[in-house]
């Protein structure tokens, strides 16, 4: 049971990547990409958890109570925001690609020859 969160992180990574590979709509592809990124949040937080550890915010609890690892949460927190920014940039590309190619299927975008 102690491997469950990591197994699910791998599962989400592969499902998201499957969505990216088989996508026929650029916006769908971008959202699947954000699912792939969410697998790393789960993995990072799964590493930092300590059984019945409190959140590492010592406002109302004494400073040396058993607390969860703060570093991992700091990394994940900024990754969530950054992931949103990159996804917004990709969506802008998709909007612009739709105007240029008239289609949103990543497979029909004109390959650049020679």
């Amino acid at each position, binding site marked *: 049971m102690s491997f469950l969160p990591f197994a699910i992180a791998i599962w989400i990574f592969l499902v998201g990547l499957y969505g990216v590979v088989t996508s026929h709509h650029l916006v769908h592809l971008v959202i699947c990409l954000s699912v792939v990124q969410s697998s790393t949040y789960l*993995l990072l937080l799964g590493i930092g958890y300590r059984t019945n550890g409190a959140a590492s915010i010592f406002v109302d609890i004494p400073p040396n109570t058993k607390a969860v690892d703060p*570093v*991992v949460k700091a990394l994940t927190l900024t990754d969530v925001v950054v992931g949103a920014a990159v996804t917004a940039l*990709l969506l802008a*590309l998709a909007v612009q690609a739709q105007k240029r*190619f008239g289609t949103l299927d990543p497979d029909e975008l004109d390959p650049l020859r*020679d």
Partner: protein
Amino acid sequence: MEKLAPLAVAGPFLIAALFAISMPLSRRRDDIVSIVTASAGVVFVGAMLIDVLSRDVPVVTWVGGWQPRAGVALGISMAFDPLSTSLALLAAVLVCAAFLFAWRYFETPGPIFHALMLVFGGAMAGFCLSGDLFNLFVFFELMSVTAYALTAYRSEESGPLQGALTFAVSNTVGAVFILFGIALLYARTGALNLAQIGVALAHGHADGLVVGAFAFLCIGFMVKAAVVPFHFWLADAYAVAPTPACVIFSGVMSDLGIYAIARVYWTMFDGPFHAHLETLRLVFLLFGGVTALWGAVLCLAQHHLKRLLAFVTISQIGMALIGVGLFSTEGIAAAALLIAADGLLRAGLFVAIGAVIHRTGSVNELRLYRLGRQVPRPLAAIFFAGALGLAGPPFLGAFSGKRVLEHAAIDVGHGWIIVVFVVAAILTAAAVLRAGGRVFLGWGEPAEDDPIPFGRPTGSEVERDDDEAEAETTGAPDTTPPVMIATAGALVAGGLAISLFPALVDKTLDAAARFTDRAAYAAVVLHGAKLPLPDTPNLGVDALAILFGLLSVGGAVGIALAVLSPRHRVRGLVPLRLRGPLRGTYWAVRRLHSGQAGDYVTWLSVGAATFGVLLAAATR
């Protein structure tokens, strides 16, 4: 001095932010300000390099003043030694050259372009100088995001969109792999500082977690470095990005991926993998060799000048990976010399091509037939000098890099790899020479349909000529601004000069010895202790190296002339029964570059699985 090191990163960021503030208010002379900032960056990193060279230990500074407590790193360290600082200097020089080039190349670039380029320069400096694993990832991500935006810069034409999209999708998946590697290492060692992780891993053996972490980190960095089969995005992205951006992309961005693999290995994984060095070399030499040859063959077939240089970049990344993949001090020195020389040469060639585009408005070699005559004479000379430098003639361009690489390969017992990178060097130089011959000298037929003597593609596929004039520069001005010629000349001269001084080779060997010394790195980062400097033998120029130098230049010129010569003489060279299968496989490989994100991510996943399995087998 080292306390100011973060300014190499924060300085360009601040100027970029100030540009963004001034943007809505009014038009500023932002190109002048950005050139001044970029040159200040070059001076600053140059001063840091001189400071580092004067001390025989990596210089360490802790951002935020968080000194480590009993060997546990609290804050983020910037540890820089001669190799990483000179790579940061190369990046700063190329950013400065790109600004100089963009100054006259674009009509109204606007502050957004300058802000993005400055952030890109700061991110590259941060990437080279960082001593923290997650910080490395943050600057990797920052370089990627700015590169996506810069690739889509001239987004009204069709090219950039499709190039930027596949670029963004591939690199984002690569970044996820890197995060997986970081998470694994953090779980095992509880640390994010490179030195501290290295110390923690030093005693353990290479079990599943360590192999997995190294595999995922390398996969992510190989996507950025465009190693086959993760390279598909590069040709599309570099072919369509605005030329000033290409100067940095091709000149140094891909090489940073190779640097990252070396940095990650030599600071963290040298301990556990030391016992499996022999089989590890085979895996990396395989990937490096295939990349070198793949890029070389495909660049011979390109007519789109920027796409041709994109494949030259891929091929030379393969050579640098061969250097790093030898996992020896000389290998690292060879890779460093190759990165420096080839990076400058490629950047100079891109500026030269930019000048041609600026003048003629077209980027297709066939369309440019003889048009190059309108471009001033010195530019043609610079282009040919750069092309010859790629082949590495004795004492010029990539010569010393190749010389050390040959020596390192023989030392390590993999002499066979010399054939691979000499052939790759010949083919890449031949392709650029051929392009130069047709554009500047008007040799060969104007509308030659198939680029290599394998005859027409089997299918009746009509070659879609998609080199619609770059809309980057409106209209074809009558004169080529002197600043472009000066920039191209300076870059190519710099690239050629790398091999002029034998002393530089010995200095690079000393620097490589310090780069690969994990114990000294950990001692100075975590405890500030200085360990004695390893002494390195100097490497003289031997006859074999000069022979290889002449061979590669001669081969390159020969092939270029052969391809440009009238059709009938060449067709006899390729035996008849070989022509069918050769053409078939060649066009199959060409159509792999389908420009579809789904394909590229599939190949990325296949490459990741192969690399992972090979690495696992290598360490059992």
